[in-house]
């Protein structure tokens, strides 16, 4: 690798489609993502923008059929996930990459004790016996702030926030290099959200783990992410450091996202939602997919896909507004 900094994850030109009957759903198109070791990338976008599909492709778990990875490369510490055989894939899943799912109510098996479920990954990857893995499970439980004595209880005996802690313990049991958190706090109460985020952040820092944080909550992004990718209709429309996105945002969609946040300083201000709805991924508008909703749309927006423009060191945007702009002027 030419980069002096080692990357945990590098996705290049990833395109995924769901083919059902004669319809083609363009879930992910030409996505490029890089996560350096120990850093966190926030993948932000509306429901249906392709965030979860991108995440599942890192584990090569996109449901097939109907999902098809059309092109692209996903390098996990230099090794292409899409070229791995089943055995190697099973080795990396849970061991190198682990995932925290959105809804802790459904991602735990209701009739196994939480201890057994945490021990499962340890048993699969570390080849230790039942007793040793259960002991480790207990200490994992303590790590996420649940008394080890509760390892023998079933998921229905835990509250939502504690269940999500258990899910996090399962994901971290084999100390992965990359943690994929797929909207880990969406199903939780606001008060619990902060606790869970804090926990994830602390554990991540302790083990110098990289993280892909999928969310639609810009507040979470501000709190935990180093870089941000804004996703719209399967494409990354803006990509940059936290500072680039929050202070120097370029893309009209990113602006729309920020404008639709309530302003706590001015309580009388009306919310400014982005008009229209996310387009049907079967029938994406020609040109830039965002142009029907864009306040700055120009004639060429509906005809030609904008090129990806580099604005500064890490900051990229895919929008016609900046096609002719000399970046040194900004």
């Amino acid at each position: 690798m030419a980069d002096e900094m080692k990357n945990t994850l590098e996705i290049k030109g990833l395109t995924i489609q769901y083919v059902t009957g004669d319809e083609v759903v363009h879930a992910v198109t030409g996505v490029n993502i890089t996560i350096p070791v120990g850093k966190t990338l926030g993948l932000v976008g509306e429901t249906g923008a392709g965030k979860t599909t991108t995440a599942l492709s890192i584990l090569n778990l996109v449901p097939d059929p109907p999902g098809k990875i059309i092109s692209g490369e996903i390098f996990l510490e230099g090794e292409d996930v899409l070229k791995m055989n089943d055995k190697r894939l099973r080795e990396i899943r849970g061991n190198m990459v682990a995932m925290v799912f959105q809804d802790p109510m459904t991602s735990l098996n209701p009739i196994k004790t939480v201890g057994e479920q945490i021990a499962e990954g340890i048993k699969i990857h570390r080849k230790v016996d039942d007793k040793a893995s259960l002991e480790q499970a207990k200490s994992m439980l303590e790590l996420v702030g649940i008394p080890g004595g509760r390892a023998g209880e079933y998921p229905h005996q835990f509250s939502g926030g504690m269940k999500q802690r258990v899910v996090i313990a399962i994901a971290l049991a084999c100390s992965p290099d990359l943690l994929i958190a797929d909207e880990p706090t969406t199903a939780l109460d606001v008060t619990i959200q902060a606790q869970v985020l804090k926990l994830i952040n602390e554990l991540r820092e302790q083990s110098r783990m990289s993280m892909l944080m999928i969310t639609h909550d810009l507040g979470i992004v501000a709190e935990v992410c180093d870089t941000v990718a804004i996703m719209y209709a399967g494409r990354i429309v803006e990509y940059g450091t936290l500072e680039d996105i929050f202070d120097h945002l370029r893309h009209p969609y990113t602006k729309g996202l920020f404008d639709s946040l309530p302003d706590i300083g001015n309580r009388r201000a009306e919310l400014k939602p982005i008009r229209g709805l996310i387009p049907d991924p079967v029938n994406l508008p020609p040109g830039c997919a965002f142009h029907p909703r864009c306040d700055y749309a120009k004639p060429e927006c509906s005809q030609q896909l904008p090129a990806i423009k580099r604005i500064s060191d890490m900051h990229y945007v895919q929008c016609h507004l900046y096609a002719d702009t000399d970046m040194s002027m900004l």
Partner: protein
Amino acid sequence: MESSSAPKRNFTTKKEFYRQFRKQSIAYELWLRFMKNPTAVLGLVLFVIIVLGAILAQTLADYDTVVIKINIGNRLHGPSWDHWFGTDELGRDILARILHGARVSLLIGIAAVGVSLFVGGAFGAVAGYYGGRLDSLIMRAMDVFLCLPDVLLAMAIVAAFGKTMVNLVIAIGLSFAPRFARVVRSAVMGVRENEYVEAARSIGARDLWIIRHHILINCMGPIIVQVTLYVASAILCIAALSFLGLGIQAPVPEWGNMLASGRTFMRDYPYIVIAPGLAIFFSILALNLLGDGLRDTLDPRLKQ
């Protein structure tokens, strides 16, 4: 958890009292739910009586001296204190033969269902988990077997391979296998879509591990119900085969062959067939009530 040093809490309700046990298992909760269903409890009680009868059969009546020993002087006695259900055409105590017959029926019934659960369950789980073409292939093959009436299929197998007890188990087991394949398949298909299955895949579990550790244990409800109901069918099937002379052979007592040999004396000595008939009736009833009760317990949504 609550400390044990607070025993005098007068606001302790029944529910609160049970809560401390809930920690142990969900099995306890299910047990409480089961006990609220009177017909299910009746089924369980009947079934336990039958099982106890089968277990204690040898203690209550010796096999060699009472059950198969011919005693012509005693033939065709009506019910009395010495012989509660009377004696049969060869002077053997009918109650003793029914108790020993329960052993045979239960043993073969359970073993046969075990065979069909294993064979059908394996095919059903694979078909349900992988879906697609493999599923169609397996299930169409099962449908072909399902077209044949199971007594007929079992008869064919026994007739071809001999009338031993093992062959009987295999015959009945195989003829029930397609039904289990269907039950297990549909249960697996329902569980397969759960997020915890995907979560298990995401930590690197292989398919067989997922089927064993996550899918099948979550299908236990419908499987247990079907097992109970099919043990009843299997017992009926054995009785039918024995009645036709293809099942258990005399002098070994079995309810079906007791009916068959008593048939000629039915007009003058009806008790000779009433007793084995009732034995079949009550064991089927017990298992069906039990099965229905278990279904209501394990899947309350099915109850209308």
